[in-house]
């Protein structure tokens, strides 16, 4: 073991800032991160055991105990449940002979739950030893467990054939489909990689690049919508010996998977965007932070970066521009939604717990290692390339006045054509439903759990920053769905699971709200419980980051837009109910003592 640990430490030069990579490698090679491993690497990195433990214990994919030779992580996202996850999970348990969150006695199979893995258009999906297995059925699960027991290799487990587009690339070989349904100017395949770097950048000063980006009015595509040009300008003006460009490819918002498709089909566009941002801001180093769930893209992306170096699109004197040096490394996450928040992402990239920082200072002043840092979404970088290629004015010809350009949407749920759609801002929810073949729709979750659940009365509202702002996740629910039980409860549990725990508000309040919601679902709710939820949730506004501040959105937006569903559930004729159930409260005590004298052997 020590030899293996030593070589992993050597690979990262015993650098504590690379603790994430070190732990990922240990997890992957040993199947878990043992006490002994923690005890071994801490002094080698010159940090305390506590420092290692705090990072190790934060991330979902790091385990203290063995996770099985085949570790199966089955997605718990709302769309997975809509596509019969329960039957799939049951079959996994029956076939493996163990409940979820445990490992078979022979150490062969481990079954675990995991939050949305970015496959909402091909659910239910599981990750087995890093490989994705989408579109699972009970039949397929039986095959998988049978083949695992028969000792088949990971490659041999695949019987579906590889997915469309680059998913079949020999560096990827994934059973994942892109499901690209609509291509717009950003995803347009008629694109010559490196064209902007070679032909346009040398003719422009960094200031001119920023001017063009500002002229396009493009705003951040991750959801928050900060003007990109301004962000770059702030970073440009910040004085420092080193600056960083970070691409946020941690898309963890349930229901979003567009970055996965861009990373698969247009990675060169993304990398080119990062190079442009580096030129504009004066950054010399870049980090592509990719969520752990997309680790199957690792070799592919690494080779592309290598290729960019070979073609002088990265490295030193890029495209012949004297002194323009820029290099990108890939940082994988290890299972944490909150790392999609830019400052949490930076913490994570520094090898720490993914806890958001207090702001200000913002990353443009003090980001990675305290240096000025631009963090942009995958799609933002891609759009910037097209802005430089065709001009800001061209870009502004798409979309609405306050939301220029296009947006890549991830559409899933009850529709005939789930997948990726690049549309101009300003589409209404109705348009989206028609486009995706969604009929008889009861509600649409716009912007994932942190967005809002809207009903038919709001379907003429439009997607744009001024109205329905979104990072691109749209989940459709038809009238067969129990919105409160299937959707709102699932999302609230998601927020509970993914809270970093640093702020008191976000650590505690979502649990309280979930319990209230359950009380209502258990038919013990009264009108006061709805009032309590609305009043209690206010405290979340005092949370440090967006996750905490939006953690009550599923419940609050559903009370607002689907009040009738709550009113159907709450008790009539009584104003007060503590929810106390004497019979339930007595069960354990009765079981422990019995009704007649019990002699224990």
């Amino acid at each position, binding site marked *: 073991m020590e030899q293996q640990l030593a070589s992993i430490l050597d690979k990262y030069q015993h650098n504590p800032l690379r603790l994430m990579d070190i732990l990922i490698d240990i997890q992957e090679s040993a199947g878990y991160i043992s006490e002994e491993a923690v005890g071994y690497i801490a002094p080698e990195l010159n*940090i*305390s*055991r*506590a*420092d290692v*433990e*705090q990072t190790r*214990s*934060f991330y979902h994919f790091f385990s203290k105990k063995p996770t099985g030779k085949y570790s199966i992580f089955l997605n718990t996202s709302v769309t997975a449940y809509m596509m019969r996850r329960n039957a799939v999970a049951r079959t996994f348990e029956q076939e493996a002979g163990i409940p979820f969150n445990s490992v078979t006695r022979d150490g062969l199979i481990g079954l675990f739950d995991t939050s949305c893995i970015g496959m909402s258009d091909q659910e239910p999906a599981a990750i087995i030893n890093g490989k994705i297995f989408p579109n699972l059925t009970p039949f397929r699960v039986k095959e998988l467990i049978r083949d695992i027991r028969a000792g088949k290799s990971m490659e041999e487990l695949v019987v579906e054939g590889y997915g469309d587009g680059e998913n079949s690339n020999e560096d990827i070989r994934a059973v994942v489909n892109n499901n690209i349904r609509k291509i717009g100017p950003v995803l347009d395949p008629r694109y010559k990689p490196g064209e902007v770097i070679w032909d346009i950048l040398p003719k422009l000063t960094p200031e001119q690049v920023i001017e063009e980006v500002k002229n396009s009015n493009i705003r951040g595509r991750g959801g928050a919508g900060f003007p990109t040009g301004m962000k770059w300008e702030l970073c440009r003006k910040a004085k420092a010996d080193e600056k960083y460009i970070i691409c946020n490819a941690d898309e963890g918002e349930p229901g979003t998977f567009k970055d996965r498709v861009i990373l698969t089909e247009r990675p060169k566009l993304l990398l080119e965007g990062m190079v442009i941002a580096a030129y504009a801001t004066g950054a010399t180093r870049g980090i592509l932070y990719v969520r752990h769930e997309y680790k199957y893209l690792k070799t592919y992306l690494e080779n592309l970066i290598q290729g960019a170096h070979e073609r002088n699109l990265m490295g030193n004197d890029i495209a012949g521009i004297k002194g323009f040096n820029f290099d990108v490394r890939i940082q994988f996450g290890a299972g*944490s939604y909150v790392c999609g928040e830019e400052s949490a992402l930076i913490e994570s990239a520094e090898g720490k*717990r993914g806890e958001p920082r*207090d702001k*200000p200072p913002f990353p443009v002043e003090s980001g990675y290692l305290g240096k000025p840092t631009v963090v942009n979404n995958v799609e933002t970088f891609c759009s910037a390339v097209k802005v430089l290629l065709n001009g800001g004015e061209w870009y502004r010809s798409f979309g609405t006045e306050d939301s220029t350009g296009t947006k890549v949407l991830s559409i899933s749920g009850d529709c005939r054509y789930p997948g990726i759609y690049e549309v101009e801002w300003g589409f209404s929810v109705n348009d989206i439903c028609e486009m995706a073949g969604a009929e008889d729709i009861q509600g649409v979750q716009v912007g994932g759990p942190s967005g809002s659940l809207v009903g038919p009365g709001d379907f003429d509202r439009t997607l744009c920053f001024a109205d329905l702002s979104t990072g691109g996740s749209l989940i459709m629910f038809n009238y067969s769905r129990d919105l409160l039980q299937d959707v709102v409860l699932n999302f609230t549990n998601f927020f*509970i*699971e*993914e*809270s*970093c*725990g*640093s*702020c*008191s*508000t976000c*650590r*505690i*309040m979502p*649990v*309280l709200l979930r*319990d209230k919601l359950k009380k209502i679902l258990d038919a013990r709710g009264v009108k006061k419980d709805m009032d*309590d939820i609305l009043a*209690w949730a*206010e*405290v979340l*506004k*005092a*949370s*440090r980051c967006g996750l905490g501040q939006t953690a009550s959105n599923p419940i609050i937006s559903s009370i607002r837009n689907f009040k009738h569903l709550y009113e159907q559930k709450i008790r009539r004729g009584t104003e007060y109910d503590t929810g106390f159930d004497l019979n339930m409260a007595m069960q354990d005590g009765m079981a422990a003592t019995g009704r007649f004298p019990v002699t224990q052997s």
Partner: protein
Amino acid sequence: MSKQITFTIDGETCKAEEGTYILDAARKNNKYIPTLCNLEGIPPKGACRMCTVKINGKLVTSCTTRVTDGMQIESEDPGLDDLRKSILEMLFVEGNHLCPSCEKSGSCELQALAYRYRMTVPRYPFFFPRRNIDSTHPKIIKDHNRCILCKRCIRAIKDQNGKSIFAFLNRGHHTKIYVDPDLADKLTDELADRAVEICPVGAIMKRGDGFKDPIGERKYDKQPIGSELEQQL
């Protein structure tokens, strides 16, 4: 010396050096803003959110936000008072805070704030989590029942090489304080005393120590927390 600036807290004019955190600036002007995680001289980490104030209608933590010239800070209004009270109540239901049997009772900052805000009962249901008392270390006892995860011990207690002795373990509502067993073994008396002293609640206790001050003579028996500042007005 850096520039003196003027700002207001609840309409009253205050002065401070530019770049001071609002909470510290308020202290210097004898204005009390409640906090459970802030410690003078230690970098802030808005963990408890108790010191939340309003600036231009926006909620910010005063321990992490610096004052600027002309800043108008709202700190005491019914909305903010209720926000702080509700945070206190959340902390009370999250852990197992059995004041009657706690050595820190009477000198506990969480309890003192609950007195100050006249909390008779939390509006939320109690979690009653199962937590343990870690008495495996030679100098200190870590009672997880009482911990409010303020991070003071994490931030303020480092060994002579600057290494962390305390750290967060897990995340979300499973978060708890991890005590590094190796470094806790070598903990000096000085550092152990300091850890006990800075813990706002009774979550870190010194071995063989407790109930030293009689009831009636404890820190907050007679005067509310914060009154030491306010009385100087």
